[in-house]
Every structure is written in C-alpha cells, then in structure tokens.
C-alpha cells in the first residue's frame, strides 16, 4: 500500500498525463514535463506575499475596468460609451436575456468571484487561519476558472473597434487601460502560481485539518 507522503511526491502532467516523481528544486528553478515540456512545478520562495500583492493590484484594476468607460465612440456628433451600466440597460431593453446573462456571468460575475476568492484565501493562508474556508474557495476556483473570459472579451473589444474604425471616432477610456493591466497581471499570476502549488501550500499550512 502506498503512503500519503509517497503520493505527495508524485505529479501527473496536466497535458499528457505522464507520471513524474518530484525532486527538491533550488530556489527559483522550474521543473518541466519530460514528454511535453510543459511546466510541472517550481520553487518560488515567498510566493504567497508576491501573489497577494499581484492579486490586490488586479482587484484594483478590475474595479476600475468595470466602473468607468471602456471606449467611447463618436459618429457625426452622436456619442455612445461602453460601460457595464450601459450593457445592463441595453440587455434589458432588447430582451436579450440568454446572451446577456451569459455575457454578464462570463465577463463580470466569474472574474470578480475569482479575484475575491483569491484575495480571501491568500490572506487566510498568510494568517494560517480558516482551513475549511480556504479549501472550499480552492474547490470553487477550480470549478469556475475555465469560465472566466476577460481575455476573450478584450480580443472581442479590439475586433469590434476595428469594425467601427471606418465609421466612428473612437476614444479609449480609463477602463480600457485598466483592462490591459488586469490581463497582464493575470498572466503574471498564472505564470508564477499554479493551482497545484496553491494546493501544496494548503497541505503544508493546514496539514490534515479539514471538515
């Protein structure tokens, strides 16, 4: 029978499902899959503090991105702005409930839930409190992470702007810049901290404490 510690020293590649044995890494070194070269794990000292700082920055930029105007277009003196409020209004007015609800969940509710969950769980992990809540938040994150589509929204925004270039004068708002910041920060966070490592930290901090 294989013990828990032995299992903890194994890792399965998320891409090709090859079984690997973990070896201790020197600080700031990374381990890659032997078959498909994808990052398996890394030794990143002080990861909690670094990620917490990045998550706080993301929370602020996400708040700005949703609060203010993303773009304003001007067609022969007629102005229209893209804001979250305008979006709600148009969806209600045009009775586009299915598309609208999907849009609001994918662009607004899921990203906000993810960033707040990250914020709460990182703070709790730093203070070594609330093991059960941390676990529930980690499970919640695993479920909703594939459904957050801010990056796809940004590409769509660019496509929409190119479509409008010929007819309208386009002015970028504060939120547009904030959206770019949010995406860059998100890339840095996911590059530095995989969920595999968050779970490992969870085991290290709370041990066998659960339920």
């Amino acid at each position, binding site marked *: 029978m*294989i013990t*828990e510690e032995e*299992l*903890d020293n*194994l*890792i*399965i590649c*998320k*891409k*090709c*499902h*090859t*079984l690997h044995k973990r070896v201790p890494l020197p600080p700031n070194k990374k381990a890659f899959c032997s*078959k*498909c070269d994808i990052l398996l794990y890394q030794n990143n000292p002080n990861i909690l503090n670094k990620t917490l700082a990045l998550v706080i920055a993301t929370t602020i930029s996400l708040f700005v991105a949703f609060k203010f105007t993303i*773009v304003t*277009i001007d*067609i022969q003196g*007629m102005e*229209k702005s*893209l804001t979250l409020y*305008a*979006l709600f209004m*148009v969806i209600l007015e*045009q009775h*586009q409930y*299915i*598309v*609208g609800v*999907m*849009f609001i969940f*994918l*662009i607004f509710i899921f990203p906000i839930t993810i960033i707040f969950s990250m914020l709460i769980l990182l703070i709790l992990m730093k203070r070594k409190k609330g093991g059960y809540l941390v*676990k529930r938040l*980690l*499970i919640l994150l*695993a*479920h909703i992470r*594939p*459904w957050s*589509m801010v990056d*796809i*929204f940004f*590409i*769509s*925004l660019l*496509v*929409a702007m*190119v*479509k*409008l270039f010929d007819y309208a004068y386009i002015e970028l708002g504060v939120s547009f810049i904030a959206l770019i910041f949010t995406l860059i920060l998100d890339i840095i966070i996911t590059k530095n901290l995989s*969920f*595999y490592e968050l*779970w490992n930290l969870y*085991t290290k901090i709370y041990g066998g404490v*659960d*339920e």
Partner: protein
Amino acid sequence: MSRELEYIRCHICEAVNYVNEKETKCRRCHEEIAPNLRLSYHKTLAFLITAIIFYIPANLYPILVSKQFGKTTTNTIMGGIIHLWDAGSYPIALIILLASVFVPLLKFILIIYLLISTRHNLHSSKVDKHKLFYITEIIGPWSMVDVFVVVILSVLIHFSGVQIFPGEGATAFGLMVFFTMISAQSFDPRLINQQKGDTF
C-alpha cells in the same frame, strides 16, 4: 491494470491519487475523482450532440441584426466574414473565421475522435490523446469572440436612427459554446487510459 490507471490526477486539486475499489474521493479535496466511466462517456456524448444541434441554427440564423432608419439588414456568421473580407479587413475576417467556424468544428471533431477511440480502443498513442484533450479544453472558450463582438456592438451602436441587435444566431451560438465546454468537462481522462478489453 496499467500503471496510468492506478494513479489518477484529481481534476480539482491536481493531487495524485491511488485508485482502489472502495475509495472514489480525492484524498486531499474530497471531491469525486472516480465517477462512473460509462456515465462520463454518455454525458460527453449527450452534451456534444446538443452542441452540434445548436451549431445549425447558429449558422443559419442571423447573428447580427442592424436597423438603419427603419431598414433592417441581417448578417449570419459566414455572411459577416465574407462582408469583412470584401471590405478588405482580412485580419479581422480571419480571426472571426478561426474563432467562429474552425474552433467549434475542431472541437467537435476532437471530442468525437476521443469518444470513438476510447470506445473502440483505436491504436493510437495515449499521450497524444491526452494532449488532444488538453487542446480541446484550451481552445474551447475562444469561440465566444463573435458573440462578444455582437454584444459590444449592440451597446455602442444604440442610437435612435441606427441600432444593432444580437440575432437568434447569437443565442444559439452562445449555447453551442456552452454545451461544447460542458461536454469537454464531462469527459473523464481515465477513458483514454482504458486498455483493450476493458469494459465500462
């Protein structure tokens, strides 16, 4: 039993688990890790068929309806791409073609291939199949680009004389993407590790 079948990766917390008959919950997050393989197979198939059904109205019905001073014009996905191409916006036409036509079709083909190959134990590399499944999960949400573009345009072009609405096609398309994503999520990677002769 193969070596890969003995160890499985929890899809929630990524912990390595040793599967035996009585333990079906992950040792770390206590989420279900060994659901019924037959159920997983049929769920994937059912959601895939739903997605393919939605793909038909998504292409036939207009994704974008524009009203200009009482005159209504509609655009389907392919119509929109041809229109962009004719107007000289080649990069945008290609992005939309890639995201709205190729990505969904590729996903359908990949999931169908994975289902058939697991059912009939086709002789192909398991590692390759795992990689294909990984690609399926990564490219999934990118088909939403066209729906998002339409929603953004409907908010921006909302004047008394000129208006843009998402058409029925947009709803069908959004639901199609939703169901392909659910279908990919229902697929249990353990199906790939099935050996010849294993039944599920």
